[in-house]
């Protein structure tokens, strides 16, 4: 084993922990049927992975495997975030796994492998590594969406997601191959050098390549017009799976898009930022407006997550490292608020599915309703929640880049989405209950919601608390 190999493996400790846990789970899957061992292992894996990622020195970027992966502040930031998303997603899954008789070992192994894929994609310094990481995530996601094999809706969602996902992967790969053809490399830095040195012809072909890569990655973050899969997949998937898919993979996709747009394709930045801004504007408008007509909570949150992808892209659309920093902050807080809101959907079980189920919740379960209200306010972007901090930084990035009109459009759409979220608040607080009080939440679900609520509150009251880490290198 060469020294470079060892360094590379050293950089991948968080991923390796997850993969090892997943393999162990697959080996013992039959023995641990019906126990909480898979959950315990996943939680342990997620925590240790987050710890190793967080503890790693990122004073300077270290590359491994011949420049295929990198360990820097950016990758470690997202690795910690993704591990937290795994942790919360796993904790939320308890009741659903039990109710739907989902095979636990396999379910958690898939969660772990998907997370490992995300971590690989956020540390990728090469388009192929990036593609591999994203594909690992997506493949696991297809299975996770369809894991309730006896449900038609679940199967339908999985197939739809698979068809569109494969198409998007092909698009991304096509873009990568075009870039390889134009620049002679798939490595980010080499691509950047080739583009800035003028060695590559800037012309329609480069535009096509950039467009295809952006489209492929936009699919992963479910940005309009590559969003159509998300509402169906979220609706068909079990609620905790939807929660997981709306959080981790989206953060990973944003991270990948950030690195690709700033490091690799910096030479084509004008075209790319235009694309990103169009994606952002379209996602914000459509996500907010279509969410208005939803009556299914998972679809509502799906459209909300589309709108939020748009807000996050506002940062990247600035095309500066300050903008990327804003997107990092946005992704971080978005993960926790969306996991919190989805967590409440999970906790309420059958009642959480439709908007009507939230009627009168405040009288039956005041604390649960208050938590949901907090997440809804955060998603709206009201101050003293992390949602405001997130919104502030991306609007600042947009204004700094001179896109004032887009910033105004974005905040006006947040009024539309306020109506969406406050509709739920109205049902919770201002309508009489139509169903009996929900059962007690499982401890792990409560813990996950409490953790999310804590992050959302601290991030709102002390908006600067994330700043030391959210720095684009």
């Amino acid at each position, binding site marked *: 084993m060469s020294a470079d190999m060892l360094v590379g493996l050293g950089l991948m400790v968080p991923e390796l922990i997850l993969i090892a846990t997943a393999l162990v789970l697959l080996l013992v899957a039959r023995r641990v049927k019906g126990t909480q061992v898979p959950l315990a292992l996943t939680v342990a894996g997620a925590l240790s992975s987050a710890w190793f990622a967080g503890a790693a020195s990122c004073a300077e970027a270290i590359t491994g495997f011949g420049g295929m992966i990198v360990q820097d502040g950016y990758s470690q930031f997202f690795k910690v975030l993704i591990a937290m998303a795994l942790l919360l997603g796993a904790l939320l899954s308890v009741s659903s796994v039990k109710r739907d008789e989902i095979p636990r070992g396999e379910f958690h192994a898939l969660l772990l492998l998907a997370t490992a894929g995300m971590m690989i994609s956020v540390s990728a310094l090469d388009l192929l590594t990036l593609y591999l990481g994203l594909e690992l995530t997506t493949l696991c996601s297809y299975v996770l969406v369809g894991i309730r094999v006896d449900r038609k809706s679940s199967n339908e969602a999985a197939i739809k997601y698979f068809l569109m996902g494969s198409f998007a992967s092909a698009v991304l790969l096509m873009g990568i191959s075009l870039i390889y053809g134009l620049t002679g490399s798939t490595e980010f830095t080499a691509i950047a050098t080739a583009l800035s040195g003028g060695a590559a012809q800037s012309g329609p072909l480069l535009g096509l390549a950039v467009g295809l890569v952006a489209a492929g990655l936009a699919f992963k973050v479910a940005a309009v017009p590559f969003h159509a899969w998300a509402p169906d997949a979220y609706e068909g998937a079990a609620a905790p799976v939807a929660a997981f898919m709306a959080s981790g993979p989206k953060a990973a996709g944003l991270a990948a898009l950030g690195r690709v747009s700033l490091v690799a394709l910096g030479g084509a930045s004008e075209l790319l930022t235009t694309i990103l801004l169009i994606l952002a504007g379209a996602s914000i408008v459509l996500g907010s407006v279509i969410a208005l007509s939803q009556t299914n909570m998972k679809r509502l949150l799906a459209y909300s997550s589309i709108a939020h992808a748009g807000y996050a892209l506002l940062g990247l659309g600035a095309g500066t490292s300050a903008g990327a920093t804003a997107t990092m902050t946005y992704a971080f807080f978005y993960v926790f608020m969306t996991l919190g809101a989805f967590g409440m959907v999970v906790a309420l079980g059958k009642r959480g599915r439709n908007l009507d189920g939230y009627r009168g919740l405040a*009288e039956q379960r005041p604390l649960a309703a208050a938590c949901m209200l907090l997440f809804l306010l955060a998603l*709206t972007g*009201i101050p003293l929640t992390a949602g405001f901090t997130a919104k502030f930084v991306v609007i*600042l990035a947009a204004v*700094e880049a001179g896109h004032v009109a887009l910033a105004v459009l974005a905040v*006006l759409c947040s009024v539309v989405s306020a109506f969406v979220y406050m509709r739920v608040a*109205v049902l919770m*607080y201002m309508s009489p209950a139509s169903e009996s009080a929900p059962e007690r939440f499982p401890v792990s679900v409560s813990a996950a919601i409490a953790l999310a609520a804590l992050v959302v509150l601290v991030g709102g009251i002390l908006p600067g608390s994330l*700043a030391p880490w959210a720095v684009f290198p």
Partner: protein
Amino acid sequence: MSEYPILSIATFLPLVGAALVLLGRSDAFARWISLIITLATLVVCLPLYTGFDRTSSALQFVESANWIPAWEITYGMGLDGISMPFVLLAALLSVLCVGVSWTAVGSRVREFHAALLVTETAMIGLFCSTNLLLFFVFWELMVVPMFLLIGVWGGPARVASAVKFLLFTLAGSVLMLVGMVAIYHSCGSLDFVVLAEAGIPAEQQAWLFVAFLAAFAVKVPMFPVHTWLPDAHTEAPTAGSVILAGVLLKMGAYGLLRVSLPLFPLAVQQFLTPMLVLSVVAIVYGAYVTLMQTDVKRLIAYSSVSHMGFVTLGIFTLDQAGVEGAILQMINHGILSGALFLCVGMIYERTHTREIADYGGVARRAPIYASLLALFCLAATGFPGLNSFVGELLIVGAAFRSGVWWGALAIWGVVLGTVYMVWLFYRVVMGPTNPGLEGLKLELNAREVAILAPLAVLAVALGLAPDLVLSGLHASVGELLSTGGLR
């Protein structure tokens, strides 16, 4: 100067109270804690009045702490002559709101008082903030509990009114958010004092003024974005109406004074005529619409549109007396509209009707109530010797100095104001007793008299000695109008 952080205590004591109320188990506990906390807050605020240096225009009782080191934004609190009276008004009205809700609110009492206490934190915090981000935080913090107060404890059409209130307010405030971000981007600071000294680049002032105006105009409310107000005021529970009319509307006008005038002086002059026109339209149009109302609460709500028109008119005369009159009138309106909504709420608790036609001859049955209502109605018309008179006089005088037409139309508004107030009083209180009121015990009890008494005392005191408020204003308003060459 005091040694302890008096403004932070006044701001966050109610928040602590809200937490206590929610942790408690019984309704009685919630009521008592709420009363004790609001009273304590009022007591904490009293030294702000007595210890205030009226000769200085500088910020007093200043507090500063590291808040967001990464963005170089500090947590800053302080008072000047303009903000000081509003803190006291907010603290006083909060106590009265707790009192009036003692029996009127019977369901989900703990949540009600928690929401009320959070609004108090938001109100006091807003008037104490010395930087724009903190100002914005409290501005938005006000919206959520108010939304719940209207929507949960309000009248029959409460949900629609609550949502309307929320959407109007948010639509305004998101534009303020973009404006704030733009200011931060071009100046690197959000501290009011720093910004006023540094000056906002001239070419940005116009659109920043418009962005902030969107937020402030909705709250004031200025014509034509006043349409949320009648619904929200009418449907809100009494305490909610009092807070809305008494303090929330002042937040908009206060924003104009605290942000728009000092930071965008060039834009203010550019937009002066449209602002004056909108103010006068609000005065006259608001008064005519008020005349037509058949619902007591709606009538008082619309009268607020007209009265707040006077306030914005006074502000945009950019005249020392006019601005001082506007501030005095904001305090007066806080006292009087609060008192009128309290009066309506008290009688509504007995009759469960707000239709003017269902009343009549209340004076025979409830002389104390009728006398107090008479005092407040007369004060609201601008009767000499009562508080509104001085404020209206200052504003109308300044309006005449700005242009004869502004003054003439304002006078017309005063006349109409007298008509609708006296007519309301006549229909509700005078004449033969409405048969529908037979068998109801209409007279106020001791608790209710105690709630109205401080406002009655203030209405008379500020009428006889307006200097109680005005003396603190001269220095700060002079300073305000001298920045950026507003005069």
